[in-house]
């Protein structure tokens, strides 16, 4: 498979690379403390905007939904989360700085746009911070302390509509589909945890605790909902195991170990349709897994760096 390469020009290791909602821009985060934004189409290709703001390696970037404009968030070893907005073409300014974490912020993820501008950040201090923009200028932060003892490595939001929300079970009293803020996190306590915002109690509660991994959970991903009645979560552990957790109408999550990699998996990521899983390994190979009709995940392809 032909792979197109982009030389990021970062002076140090690249820790994250994310395409925006339409796939027209690429943001990269690097140890050289910068974030770069590349245009994937048009003339400006290859001349990235450089976002200087962090004072330590930047671990992750995340694009907000385009309904909020050109916005991205970055998190860093300097314990900060910065939210950037493109004021004029190519010129990015920091519109919000979150610096309440007590440790390196390792992971960030924007919530589904239905919830507004809401960002989840996981830190090495073990906490999860939910940062949401309420009024024109205000940002409020809700902290889940000790989400993962020793540190949070990865966080991913559930689709806004819970599984089966459009069928009878999940409907609100007025017949409209009830939204539910949920996210999944993986951390250094070897656990995958699912969190749910309780509107009654106005706080985040742990919904489920998925124990399987015997090492740190490296990456988690909640599959997008395209109308199928099941929820799917993928998690990858330091021990090389890639697990798919799924839940339909039943209350419990069932797990399938789909792969045992020899190398550490860096990340798991679902396609937009939710049925292809990309697993990146430390050996540089990206394996693609697809769910069969019989519900089994099979490897369909491998992408390698050397291509």
């Amino acid at each position, binding site marked *: 498979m032909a792979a*197109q*390469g*982009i*030389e*990021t020009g970062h002076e*140090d290791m*690249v*820790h*994250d690379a*994310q*395409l925006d909602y339409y*796939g027209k821009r*690429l943001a990269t985060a690097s*140890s050289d403390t910068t974030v770069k934004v590349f245009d994937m189409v048009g003339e400006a290709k290859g001349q990235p905007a450089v976002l200087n703001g962090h004072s330590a*390696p930047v*671990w992750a970037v995340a694009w907000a939904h385009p309904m909020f404009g050109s916005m991205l968030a970055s998190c860093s*070893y300097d314990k900060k989360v910065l939210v950037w907005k493109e004021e004029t073409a190519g010129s990015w300014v920091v519109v919000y700085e979150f610096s309440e974490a007590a*440790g*390196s912020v*390792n992971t960030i993820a924007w919530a589904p746009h239905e919830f*507004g501008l809401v960002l989840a950040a996981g830190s*090495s*201090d073990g906490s999860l911070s939910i940062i949401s923009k309420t009024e024109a200028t205000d940002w409020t932060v809700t902290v889940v302390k000790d989400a993962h*003892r020793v*540190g949070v*490595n990865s966080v991913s939001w559930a689709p*806004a509509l819970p599984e089966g*929300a*459009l069928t*009878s079970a999940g409907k609100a009293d*007025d*017949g*409209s589909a009830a*939204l539910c803020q949920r996210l999944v996190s993986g951390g*250094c306590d070897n656990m995958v945890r699912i969190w749910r915002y309780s509107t009654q109690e106005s706080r985040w509660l742990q919904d489920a605790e998925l124990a399987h991994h015997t090492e*740190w959970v*490296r*990456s988690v991903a909640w599959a997008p*909902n*395209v*109308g*199928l*009645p099941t929820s799917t979560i993928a998690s990858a552990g*330091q021990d090389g195991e890639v697990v798919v957790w799924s839940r339909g109408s039943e209350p419990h999550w069932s797990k399938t170990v789909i792969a045992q990699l020899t190398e550490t998996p860096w*990340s798991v*990521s*679902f*396609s*937009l*349709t939710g*049925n292809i899983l*990309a697993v990146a390994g*430390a*050996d*540089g190979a*990206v394996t*693609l897994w*697809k769910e069969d009709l019989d519900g089994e995940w099979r490897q369909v392809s491998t*992408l390698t*760096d050397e291509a």
Partner: protein
Amino acid sequence: MAEDDPWRQSMGIHFEGLHVTTIGVDATNTVGAFGTLNGVFLLDLEDLTSPTTAISFRNQYDVRTLHWNRIQSSLLACTSNDKVYVWDVAQLEEADGDTRVHTELSKHVRSVNDIEWQAQSAHVLASCASDAYIYIWDIREPSTEKRAFTSYRTDRAGVSQLAWNRHDGNILASAHAGFVRIWDMRNESLPIFGIDWSYNVSSELVTCALDKLVKFWDVNKPENFIDYIQSSSPIRRAKYTPFGGGLVTASSSTHTDLKLWSRASLRSPSHTFAATSVRGQPTDFVWRFSPYDSSTYQLLSWSSDSQLRLWAISDDVFASVGHTPSRRPLSPAVRLNKLAGVGAAGAAAAGTGASATNAAGTGTSSSPGLAVPVGGMSPSAAPSPRDVELVSPGSEASSPPALGSPPSVALRVPSKMAGGGMRSPAASPIFRVDSESQLTTLEQEVVYLKQHPVDGASLDRANYGAGLVFLTFTSQTSSSEISPPSAPATPIELRGPTLEFVQRSFFSASSSARSSETTPDVKIRLKELVGSLIQMRERESMPCLHATVTEIATQFDLLSKAKANHALHDGEGGLEAGGRGHTGGNESISVVAAEFVCPRLGGAYFGPRGTIVFWNCFNPSLFRLSNPANQLGDDDVEPESPTSPTSGRARAQQPGRDGSRSAETCWPAMWSDLSLSLELEQQGRELHVSDTGGVLATDVLSSILESRPSLSAKVSLTRATGQAKVHHKTRVRLASAARFILASPTLAEQYAVDASRASLPALCQANAGVAARAKRRDLVRVWKLAAQMLSAYTPRALAGALCRLGSSASGVPWAVHPFARATLASLFDHYAGLGDVQTLAVLSCVFAQADAAAVAAHAAVAAHLGGSAARMPRDALLFVDAPLEARANAYRLGYCRLLHAWGLLNKRAEVAKFVTLAAQVAPFSSSVMLANTCPHDPVVVSAAPQCFACPQSHFMLECGVCRRGMRGLASACLKCGHGGHVRCLATWFDGSIQVCPTGCGCKCIPDRAARLQPQTGVVVMD
């Protein structure tokens, strides 16, 4: 008079020497036809004394089957050997008994076994024969060659029976040697298992066979029959009752009675039509209802002793199959009959247990008994006594549950298991529990704990009476340097859900001098953790002990590690390599897992349209160090002078493939040419700690600083220079995985969704073309099938079909087809399994439009024709029923998201039109909305055009010129926001006035000179 009314009285007529093979009643329910050895004779059933009309034909074969046309009541078809004859009885009468054959259908080469007229047609007839052919005839066709317009040939033996579906004239069921096929005239290769169609449920049919079973089938679930009747003899005929939910069966062999079964309870017949005067078994039976009162039914049967019997149907019989006839007031004559019926039914009820006593009285009243199971057997098992006798001992043993003979089984098993098997439960009181959830008592929990020991915890003793368990926890990972050499004991009391430290715990006992200030915190922390765990387990009513012990052991480990860590900076030099990796120099820093950051150095993430962005900066050569002392010399990224007395490095280790990683190490992924250095100064002596890997988290630093206030610290991040620079791969790659993703933007762009421009079949054909271009052969087939299913869904065809419904079978909307919804549902299931939301959403949109078209056509036809269109209920015309609709909505919504991310906004809008309102997502947070303040009460803000807060219901907007309420065409200045009626504004700005009419001072109209087009209108915005 009472005796003359055949509807109220059962009677028998004897025809001497007549051998009748088959009987039938015409569509008017007044004429009976009887097939005999050499012809057919007709009998006026309303006037049994009238002379019979005989139709004879010149061959030596008997009439095997006859069938009256249901539409044109004078048409009678019968078979004789390999010929099918059709007479028009009306013409016969005119010709005064002329035996001229109206039509002779001869194409079969073996004897014809069955014929049946299509229920909806006056001229379509199906016949089947032993030559394995089924022919569908159109008797209007003058050419004998073309008369059979459709034929089916089976690869098996001859066809014995056939039956048309009562609801859809395209469906035909045929019976072969041992199986049933269902034919769809529109699809010649669709044989499915399943022979009399139900009056009530369009998808249900019943078959009966030599295997003594009557089976009920749901053709939507052909895998297995849904219900059955077990009989003691082969069933010759099974026909549904036209009323209620019942079934009449006729057995072959020695039984002379007809049995009526209620569909609701098939274990025993609800009624038996039996008479002592009948000696032969029934050959055939048929229903008719009174032409004067459609709620009155009569069962006609012919038995092999040349007797025609007409069975009256009493109210009890109706009731037994769940039917309540609406009756006219009973005449006195009828009441007599009714009393007789009650007597018979009472006897039937009394006879459920025992004998076949014949209800005395008239020879025509039904007698109960013959088929009733005797007492002693449970009704549900329902083998009749004869069955039990027939079962051999061998088969009894092989299937004991069916025959209900547990004693033999129960006796046999112990005899085999004699000895140890019996003794074992008593001999070993220790039970083995594998699942924790089975535990109920503390004793069991303790046993479970013994059987599943937890590392680091040992059970001392337990006092079951007091509910106390004493445990000792030992730390495994704390090094001997820090922990006392002897393992510290922590007796902990677990009383139900509470946790108490009985004695001084390890945390205080072993803390000796150094970190005693942390002990209460640790204790509280441990209690908190264990407390929440216990609460959680209690909620799920799970046992606590094992989980608690595990948790404490884990916590204990971690806490003792943390303690070791805290202890570090109190030692001489203060810095010790974590765990057993002690370097001996007291110079390196211990870092436990808690303080590592662990960045990822590679990854792969999906973008929209199947793009994957991936990169990997991991360079294994940089992560080979395991012993810092050995690495210092040859590590080219070491920025510090190795001679510095306090320089040290955190340990870095590649994750071992051999799995040999020690417990206390984790993987510090490093940005290796960046160094984080910590300079500690104490009394002029410089402690310089460098952490090249950047693995030293600030937590550790700060805790060091806190404990050593005399130190001043400088934390700095410095980049390595010169040759220490390591070149990383910073290339990010993009690849496409689109070929693995079924939903494709290309298809999305080309698919037609909205059928307002093209007809539905044409749209499906177009989409098939799109799929063909995209090389999706499965989708080509799906769309071609959809086009076929929707071929009758043009407005004209639909209206025509609905008008003709009942009279013609051609062009019936496909949704009426018994397999239509099943087909669609299986398509949906298939693509849902594949996760192809695109196909699902587009298909659902197309079929939603078909439903909308059918409903519109139905409404139009109903409006024009009144009740006649109601023969086909509206809901029967819908492809997509409510559950499917809910699913379809979810698919459409999901597809909309995809289309949005693909940037195909117009296509998204097309699909979004089919998302029903109930599926719209309730807004989580309010977004921007337009609202006005009431000019008279600025507090009132509303989006409504009028203010409903003030009593005058003012218009929310007021014209700036005429000061009247605003409605109609309005305009406003973009700068000041004032405006008014377009006409007023035009007048206001007509002359040289350029300022706002409200006097706010805004120059709403710029200078004319400045305007590009001076001739444009006066209104500021348009």
